[in-house]
């Protein structure tokens, strides 16, 4: 290609500088929405830089300029060809009232799969404990659950001192961080084609089923409900939502019955997964507070009926929220 390079550089450099400045402005504030005129200018400068790159690409003497132009074109391409809705500040009210419940309902099958796996784990835990009560130490490897339910209930109900006195907030923080890590781990294991998510949910189900069976067999159903329901009403759904998000990732990774490339499939679900992550985090913060400040107190401090009623209200509200909220705008 015959090109008068000095003249070409002198003529085009100002457009490249203008494009670089426009990109700097756009990139400096991720939530800023450029005006229509700015977008038109950007598109014009992008086309001009692309054409310049095509002209200079085969020319031997300007490798630095070519690299510079490539970087400009790459940056503008990212801004111009992005088809997902642009960056904007999060509207918390809209997100809470519409986006989270709508996202949950959009992937209902993944949620029911998470429920089914957990229930299968529960059934396994119940059966295992019924067939072999000696397996308790293996199924529930937690020191606090090793004593018999009758002994524990008697100890808790006759406690003279508040064992969490002075450490309640610390306990709540530990619960929040631990449960959130478990939830994120369950979600992340979706990238093992969902296998890891299934294992984690099943194991959680086994523990839950075994603990429940242990207390019910010992005639401590009331204590069990009053102990687990207040925080479990949000903690267990949060883990199920993490399983749902894990299965969404797994579904996009596997890509049954679609010819869309893997990268695009995963990209398509990324915002839904993020929405669920935020929902899970909120639920687990609440669960941590309730478990530390409410669930660990039993009769006579707090009547069981009150705790069970509280948990039932929470579970009903959560079910209604996820099932109904934002329906009119979906």
């Amino acid at each position, binding site marked *: 290609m015959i090109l008068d*390079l*000095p003249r070409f550089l002198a003529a085009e450099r100002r457009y490249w500088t203008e494009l670089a400045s426009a990109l700097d402005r756009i*990139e400096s504030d*991720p939530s800023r929405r450029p005006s229509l005129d700015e977008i038109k200018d950007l598109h014009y400068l992008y*086309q001009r830089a*692309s054409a310049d*790159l*095509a002209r200079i690409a085969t*020319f*031997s*003497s*300007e*490798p*630095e*300029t*070519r*690299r*510079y132009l*490539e*970087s400009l*074109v*790459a940056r503008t*391409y*990212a*801004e111009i*060809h*992005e088809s*997902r809705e642009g*960056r904007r500040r999060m509207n918390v009210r809209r997100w809470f009232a519409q986006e989270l419940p709508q996202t949950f309902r959009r992937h209902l099958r993944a949620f029911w799969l998470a429920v089914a796996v957990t229930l299968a784990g529960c059934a396994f835990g119940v059966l295992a404990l019924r067939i072999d009560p000696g397996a308790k130490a293996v199924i529930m490897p937690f020191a606090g659950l090793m004593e018999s339910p009758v002994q524990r209930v008697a100890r808790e109900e006759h406690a003279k001192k508040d064992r969490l006195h*002075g*450490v*309640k*907030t*610390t306990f*709540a*923080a*530990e619960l*929040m*961080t631990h449960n*959130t*890590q478990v939830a*994120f*781990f369950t*979600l*992340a*294991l*979706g*990238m093992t084609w969902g296998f*890891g998510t299934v294992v984690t949910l099943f194991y959680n189900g086994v523990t839950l089923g075994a603990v429940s069976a242990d207390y019910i067999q010992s005639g401590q159903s009331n204590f069990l409900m009053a102990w687990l329901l207040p925080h479990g009403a949000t903690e267990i759904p949060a883990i199920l939502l993490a399983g749902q998000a894990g299965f969404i*990732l797994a579904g996009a*990774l596997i890509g049954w019955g679609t010819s869309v490339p893997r*990268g*695009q499939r*995963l*990209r398509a679900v*990324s*915002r839904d*997964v*993020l929405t669920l*992550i935020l929902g899970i985090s909120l639920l687990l913060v609440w669960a941590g507070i309730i478990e530390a400040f409410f669930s660990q107190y039993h009769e006579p401090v707090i009547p069981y009926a009150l705790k069970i009623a509280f948990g039932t209200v929470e579970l009903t509200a959560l079910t209604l929220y996820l099932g109904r909220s934002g329906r009119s705008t979906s």
Partner: protein
Amino acid sequence: MTKARTSSVVIETPEGIAFTLLLASPVTRFLAWIIDFLAIMALDAGLQNALRITGILGADFAQAAGILGYFVLSTGYGIAFEWRLRGQTLGKRVLGLRVMDAQGLRLDFSQIVIRNLLRAIDLLPVFYMVGGLVSVFSRTAQRLGDLAANTIVIRNPKIEQPDLDRLLGGKFNSLLEYQHLAARLRQKATPELAGIALGALLRRDEFEPQARVELFDELAAYVQSLVKFPAEAVENITSEQYVRNTVQILYRGK
């Protein structure tokens, strides 16, 4: 068919223009992570000290804030920096790396969150073993978090124009007396030769004297093999001056 591992990703735009993104190696990424890890530790130490000073709020509250603070720092560090610095953490900035969308499009916040949360799996069992193994076998050096978020980590060198005025300014160029030969040189020289000759001139003071003489002799001989200038144009000039004249022809034209 197995896909060979590459060191770059070429993205072709709908306008028919192709640009290249250079992929970061797993080793460089690991070094960037070490810098980030040290930064998190430093920030956490600062936070814990601040909480100790404000201990009047109560030991229980301070301890809880410490636990939550570390959790938020370790989880949110990568998310916050990559969002505000457009794909860079402190470690990535120091080593000139950047997270990009795998298709070269704008990085979305959800992608940043997912790739950072999946670090929990990539870190297993220790020192990024899972993530390292996956990225070694990935064609585009993606760890699990990158695969899930559809992101890649690229080398992001700072690109500057060479200062040709300082390099070439004001010296007589005997080769330019023969414009038709200069035009032929421009035609025959490859981009690689132009880059090597310019690079050699820019870094000439870094070479040992003997190596400098040998390098410019070799370059001058190669240029002469492409286009032969008359003896009067090249006599009494050193190989380095010959290469300097060549670069002026290639970059300036006149």
